[in-house]
């Protein structure tokens, strides 16, 4: 009996170590981090999306920025990467001087360079600078009569260089922008599950925190959300729903997974790293209402509890 008792007590003690994780998971912060707003003037943009004149050049030029998928995809599938949308904003053009800034993944960086007009093409090249470190060289050209800004980025020998093509975006906040079908998947959090298909052998697959069709049901920028709706949402849905409010205002996301997700939305243009002042009353109300549900879902959804 004695050894059994010792075994029992020891086993219990081991079990009790770190049990608090069973009833509560550490929740991530639901606050959008603010690291000081980088303020740039809103460029005067003409409504011409096809460039007829030098005046038409100023404005936001946005599009997907990253290496070609075919080149970068590893044989086993490089799931950890996605694409960011970049916004090359041409703020001011004076003679052959171009002033602007780039917005990508939570960062706003100014640039200044000379523009060369050759034939019907405008060309310029600038270096991206962040914290006094170079973030590569951007070489771009825009042709008269065209609607594309085509460019090339090279970041030195260690990273593959790539081309990009951006279009001019006339940004006017629109609360009606809907989330288009696109999956947010957090590849860093997986859970192994066994799947038994109707035919064939059982196999193990991983389940990730991902969004469902629920996020398309209501729009937190136009609809007052109900507690009934929020209470049945999972954490990824709540995360995307909340951040869709910021995305509509052109918030540029630092977290790569959020940046990738919203970069796939056709209406999304990264503009600012602080949109708090732009939020509408209905959005503020919904944000306040969503916060406890998101925190609760993060902490308790898959824990022992109710």
């Amino acid at each position, binding site marked *: 009996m004695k050894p059994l008792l010792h075994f029992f007590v020891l086993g219990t003690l081991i079990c009790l170590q770190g*049990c608090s994780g069973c009833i509560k998971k550490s929740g991530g912060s639901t606050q959008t981090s603010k690291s000081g707003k980088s303020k740039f003037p809103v460029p005067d943009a003409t409504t011409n999306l096809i460039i007829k004149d030098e005046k038409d050049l100023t404005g936001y030029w946005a599009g997907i920025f990253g290496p070609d998928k075919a080149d970068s995809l590893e044989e086993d599938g490089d799931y950890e990467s996605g694409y960011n949308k970049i916004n090359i904003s041409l703020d001011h053009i004076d003679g052959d001087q171009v002033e602007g800034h780039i917005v990508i993944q939570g960062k706003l960086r100014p640039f200044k360079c000379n523009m060369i007009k050759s034939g019907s093409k405008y060309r310029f090249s600038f270096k991206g600078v962040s914290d006094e470190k170079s973030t590569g060289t951007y070489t771009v050209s825009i042709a008269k009569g065209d609607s594309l800004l085509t460019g090339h980025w090279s970041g030195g020998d260690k990273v593959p260089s790539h081309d990009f093509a951006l279009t001019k975006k006339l940004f006017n906040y629109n609360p009606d922008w809907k989330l288009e079908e696109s999956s947010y998947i957090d590849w860093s959090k997986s859970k192994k599950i066994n799947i038994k298909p109707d035919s064939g052998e059982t196999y193990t697959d991983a389940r990730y925190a991902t969004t469902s069709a629920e996020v398309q049901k209501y729009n937190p920028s136009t609809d007052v959300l109900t507690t009934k709706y929020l209470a049945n949402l999972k954490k990824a849905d709540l995360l995307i729903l909340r951040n869709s409010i910021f995305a509509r205002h052109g918030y540029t996301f630092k977290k790569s997974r959020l940046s990738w997700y919203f970069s796939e939305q056709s209406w999304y243009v990264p503009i600012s790293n602080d949109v708090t002042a732009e939020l509408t009353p209905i959005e503020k109300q919904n944000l306040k209402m969503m916060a406890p549900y998101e925190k609760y879902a993060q902490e308790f959804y898959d824990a022992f509890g109710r």
Partner: protein
Amino acid sequence: MQLSKKHYLLTAGNALWYACLMFFSYLMLLITLQYIPVRTDVAFLQIKGDVTGMLHYRVAFFAHVYTGMFVLLSGMLQFPAFIRQRFPTIHKWSGRIYTGGIILLAGPSGLIMGYYGNGGLVSQTAFCILAVLWIAFTWKGVAAIWAGDVRVHKIWMYRSYALTLSALSLRAWKWLLVLLFAPGPMDVYHVVSWLGWTGNLLMAEVIIRARGNKL
């Protein structure tokens, strides 16, 4: 002497059963500790903002949470034969804590919480029925022992404790269902608000039937 000693020893099966109970009770204790000191902005209460403003809900909630722990543990002391036979005083006094705790505090407060429960009518109905049966079964058990009928006392107390343990089984079911199917939080809540206690009650009936006259 040899025989009676054997009789008092817990069998391996019993030990495992109590280990399980102790483990989940410990998790329950951790859940309860989140509400000490009294606060309404943590855990379950953070999504109950619509009702935590009401004094009677807060009183019911904290009465339920704090009494629940004592009920769970005092209930656990009722079943080992050696306590009942060797230390009847412990059995009686912990029994008074258990039954008084349920009938006067944890049961009625559970009914109030059930009325304001999450998950709409589906879950509210489940929780209200659970609270009423919990009080009723416990009362029947008390009445039976006052009348001196040990067998009937045992039967109703099995049922009563089965409902007490729904606190653990509801949470364990929820954890398991989320692990297996990853349903929406409220969808799983609808299921466990019923499954959490009906399963236990079924098990209690099976045990009562199986022991039959040996009770």
